[in-house]
Every structure is written in C-alpha cells, then in structure tokens.
C-alpha cells in the first residue's frame, strides 16, 4: 500500500510539517520514535491494512519545520494536538513508538478526555533505577544495530538500506540527519528520558495497549510493567524475537496487539 505524502500547516501557520497518510477505515495517528519514520516503512504499511494511518513528522525530522519553538515536553505535547486538529481528526486512536509513545502518553495524561484509545510501543518516559535506559546519544553509528534490534545484521541492513556504515560519505549524511533529528529528540530525552510522566499517568482514561519487544535493549521490558501498573486497565503484550525496533522486526505482531483496541 503506497502512502500519500504532504505538508500541513499547524498551529495557525506557526509550523509546517510533513505527513504520510495511507489506508482506510478509522483514523490512527502514529507518532514516530527518535529515529523518525519513512514513507516506505513496513510498519506504516501494516497499520494501513487496518486503519487510515496518519504519520506526522516531528519538526527536525525530514522537511518538517519549526523545531526551534518546541523546547520542552509541554510544547511538543500541545504541538501534537495541534497536528491532530490540523488534520481535521476527532479523537483518533493514538499510537506511538519509543519517543512517540512518550508523547502519546503525555497527550493522554494532559487531556484525558481527548484520547480514547492509546497504543504505546516500547514508550520512553519513565525512569527505573533498577532498569536504566542506556545513553542513546553517545552511541556511535556502528553500535546502533545491536542496540536497537534483536537481530543486529538485519538491523544494520534496515538502518543503512544496504549502504556501508564505514563509507564516510554515507556516514556523513547519516550523522547530519541524526544530529538534526536527535537535537529535537534531546529536548525530550536528553540526558535522561524522564519529564515527569510518572506523576501524570494516573490521569489517563484511554483504553491502553502496551507492546514490547522481549529483547529490548534500549528501554528494558520492565518499563512495560511500570507503565501497565500506572495506567488503569492497561494491557501489556510482549513480542518474542524483537528488540526496541519491534515495529520493524515484527510489524504484524504489533498490529495484531493494537487491533485488540478495536
């Protein structure tokens, strides 16, 4: 299924962002993680077989603009509601991966009556002393595949799309893209991905599904239990043979878990 790709003015023209849209049915907004999302993502395609998927790129990602005005968690949370409004959607299902899960959980905490169904895939946002999240920001490019994926070789192919991580030209483009994206992500995640969400989780009213790769080395699966314990009625599904990038390694299993939200 091919996606449509277009720019949308958000917040009365304060920001202009890129949105990928695919599929049909009930609307679902997918909020990407710190690595971003591409138009040809197999996960977007899998979601689109069941929902009408909208995947906005956060400013700093792709050609989405306006990152300089988004400095903290509240600004990003409100921006994301502005995106939902700009897309003309009314209480769509919200799904977020990693950083996107953190944003979606914040949205559901800040405005509990605006979010009825919530899918959180390995969300960031909590800190557990016994299960620390490693320092994503100081990782070198060649360390990322084993960090992010259950299967590092598969991960390297996915991250590079076949290019060579030791080719300086590829590396330069990779690092510049990374610098721009993670500059934005760092406002939510650096140096510790905790902006107080734990104190607000109790406000969430949405029916919530948590999905975690069993081999997640970025956000340890114990965080799933902590989220589950903090959100009334939440369900947690663990997916085998998957790391933090469970959406790429096991897209169908993630979609099946989310489908339980209806």
């Amino acid at each position: 299924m091919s996606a449509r790709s277009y720019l949308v003015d958000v917040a009365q023209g304060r920001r202009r962002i890129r949105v990928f849209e695919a599929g049909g049915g009930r609307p679902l907004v997918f909020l990407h993680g710190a690595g971003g999302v591409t138009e040809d993502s197999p996960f977007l395609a899998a979601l689109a077989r069941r929902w009408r998927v909208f995947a906005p790129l956060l400013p700093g990602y792709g050609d989405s603009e306006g990152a300089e005005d988004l400095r903290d968690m509240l600004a990003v949370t409100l921006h994301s509601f502005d995106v939902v409004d700009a897309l003309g959607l009314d209480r769509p299902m919200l799904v977020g991966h990693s950083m996107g899960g953190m944003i979606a959980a914040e949205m559901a905490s800040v405005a509990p009556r605006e979010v009825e169904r919530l899918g959180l895939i390995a969300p960031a946002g909590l800190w557990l002393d016994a299960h620390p999240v490693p320092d994503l920001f100081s990782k070198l490019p060649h360390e990322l595949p084993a960090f992010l994926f259950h299967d590092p070789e598969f991960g390297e192919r996915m991250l590079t799309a076949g290019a060579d991580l030791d080719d300086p030209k590829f590396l330069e483009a990779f690092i510049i893209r990374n610098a721009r994206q993670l500059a934005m992500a760092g406002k939510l995640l650096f140096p510790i991905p905790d902006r107080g969400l734990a104190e607000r989780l109790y406000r969430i009213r949405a029916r919530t599904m948590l999905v975690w790769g069993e081999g997640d080395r970025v956000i340890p699966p114990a965080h799933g239990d902590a989220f589950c314990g903090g959100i009334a009625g939440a369900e947690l599904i663990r997916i085998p043979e998957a790391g933090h990038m469970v959406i790429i390694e096991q897209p169908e299993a993630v979609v099946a878990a989310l489908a339980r939200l209806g």
Partner: protein
Amino acid sequence: MRFVWFNLMPWPDLPEDFREKYRSVWVDIPSALYDPTRGHEVYNTYLDQLEFAETVGYDGLGVNEHHANAYGLMPSPCLMAAALARRTSRAALVVLGSSIALYDPPIRVAEEFAMLDVISGGRLVAGFPVGTSMDTNYAYGRVPGTLRERYAEAHALIRRAWAEDQPFVFNGRYTKLRYANCWPKPVQKPHPPIFIPGGGSVETYDFCIENNYNYSYLSFFGYLRGRRLMDNYWQRVAELGADDSPYRAGFAQSICVAETDAEAERLYGSHVSYFFNRCLHIYPGFVDAPGYRTVKTIQSEFLNQLTRPNLGAAASLSWGELVERGYIVAGSPETVRQRMEELIKTLRVGNIMCLIHMGDMPPEMTRYSTELFARKVMPHLRGIWKDYEADERFWICPLAERVVPAPIAAEAAR
C-alpha cells in the same frame, strides 16, 4: 604580542595502559584513578608554576574549565584565579571558564568575575566559553538543542548586571530574577576584557566581532591545522567591516624549548606523548552530542574519525610527526622563534596561550622550558605587532594603585 602561560592541569598518573583499559579520559573515566593526597601536591605544584610564569615575564596566567576530565582538573577556574589573585601582582588572570550556560542563575558568574576583578585590582580577563559537548551536555546534563539559547540569555544577563547601577527585572526564558543586582561590580569599565574560546562556527565569529570580544582558538592541534579556521575568522572580520587588530584573536600552542632541538626531544618526548596519547584519549561518542553543533558546522574531518577502521587504529603519534604537523612547536630557542613567528603572522594573532606544561611533565622541567621561552624567545616576538600597541580594547586595565597583600601575622612578627 602578549603571552599567556596556560596550565590545563592534567592528572599526571594515568596508567601506561590507559588507552587499552579505558574508553575515555573525559566524562566516564572512573574517579578511582584520582588520588586526593597526590592531588594536593599536584594542585599546589601547578599553582606554583603559574606564579613562576609571572616572575619571568608572561603577560597573563591562564586557567580554564572542564568537568569529569582527567586532563583538565579545574571544574572551577575562578577558584584557581582567586588563589592566583593574592600571590601574583601584575599578570592578567585569564579565566577561560566560566561556561555561562551551566550556572543557574548565571548572575553567579557576573558576581564571581566581579569579585576576581576587584580582588586583583582589575586584572581579570573574563572568558565566556560555550563549553565542549563533553562538559556541557554529558557531564553537566544540559540539553544540546537549547544550550546556545541558554548561553545567549546568560550573556545578556551578565553584561546587563555589570552595566546597571540599580536592581533590574530580568525576565528570561531560562532565568527569571525579580531583583537582578550584582554586588560587587567589576573594577574594569565598562567591563573586563572578554575572551571567547571558539571552534569555528560562523555565529561565534560574528558574536565576537560585533561585541569587540577576543576570539581565541584553543586547539591542541597546532597552527598548521588552525590556519583554515583563522583565515575564515579574518575573512569574516573584513566582511563585517571591523578593523584587523591582531589583538582580536588568540591561539593556543603547545611549546617545548630546550638548548637544542635534540635536547627538546630527549627531555620532553615522553611527556608530550603522555599528553597526546593518554590525555587526549576521548571517546568519539562524547565529542559532539546531536544538537550541540549546528548542522552546517559539523566537519567532515570529524565524521571520518567515526568509521570503524579509524576507531580501531587511533594514532600513536611520534615526536617527529607531532613536530612536523605543528601540534607542538619544539626545539632550540631559534627553532621555536622561527616557528612562532610564522604562527603569529600567518594566523594574525596578538595573544598566544602558551601550553608549556605538557601532560606529566615534572615541575623543574616545566620551569626550564617556561624560562627559556620567556628569556630567549619572547623578546624576539614582542614587537611583531608594534603598529597595534595602542590598541587597549582587548586587554586588562588594572588600577594604578593596587593593594599588596600584607604578610601573614607569623611572618610579620619574625
């Protein structure tokens, strides 16, 4: 020409297999490697050296700010400058901290610098570095993407705190003060000379030129590699229509002087090697947190270091390679004079931050090299910019009558 004797204050006891056993000299180096008893001796030795430098004729004494760093043991450069303020009498105190985006509220820096300027009778050179990514992001937890905005706000607050004669309201994004009120105020008016350590971003050039701040390139990699950056700086000075006084600029250079070139290698070789191969062993993942630099200033030279083969084969440079590449200026007084003259003229700098204590160099050797440079090299370089001698914008203006610390009671009684 002005010469600042600069001590980075490295830890001198990093083990021989440091590179193999530890991934970085900075950020996550275990503090188990630090021994406070030895540290007592080390700090006092380094302060002795700085004080010695004044007695042989250096114009300034330089200290800087690093955090979680075994080659830079000055988390608080103001403390070192305070110690120097009482035991020196003439030299400028060149404090190339404070990293103003790290202090909350940043008016603390305005206060501490004012204290130093007053205690020393107007001898403070105030440095406002952004700070490296290792210091600001990794060791001090500042969010990379908002660091420069914080810096700009802190700068505005400090300058205003020094200028205002009444309390004022400061409503910044990061700092909100109902009563911004700097007591004491600096001796030097309108403010102490301000030096900005830079690393090549166009924004910093403009900031220095527009404010008449000194731009100092504190590289460890010598004047041959510094050339391109300083050329870009001077081009920008011309574009903005500013004058080309060399005192607008400074450069840090590692310098080793002995009676002959051969003696320099024999005396200093192992200490220089300690500095370049142990002290500068920095994990590349800490060098540039995403968002620390603007995308346009990310250098491809840096990127190349991140490929796996380059990471594995970190260079262990020989004396000859270090000299040839200009990382160090070393040899007899005549050799050093020639190369320093070339450096000063090609980079067009009026200030040299002389890095003479290298790595684990012992005190007597440090004094030897320090004194040889002062007596046999400096006099020949002094007059290079004599046409600009009247330019006082970028240097200290001390009180004419300065207090001399009284002898302590026991000494006075003897």
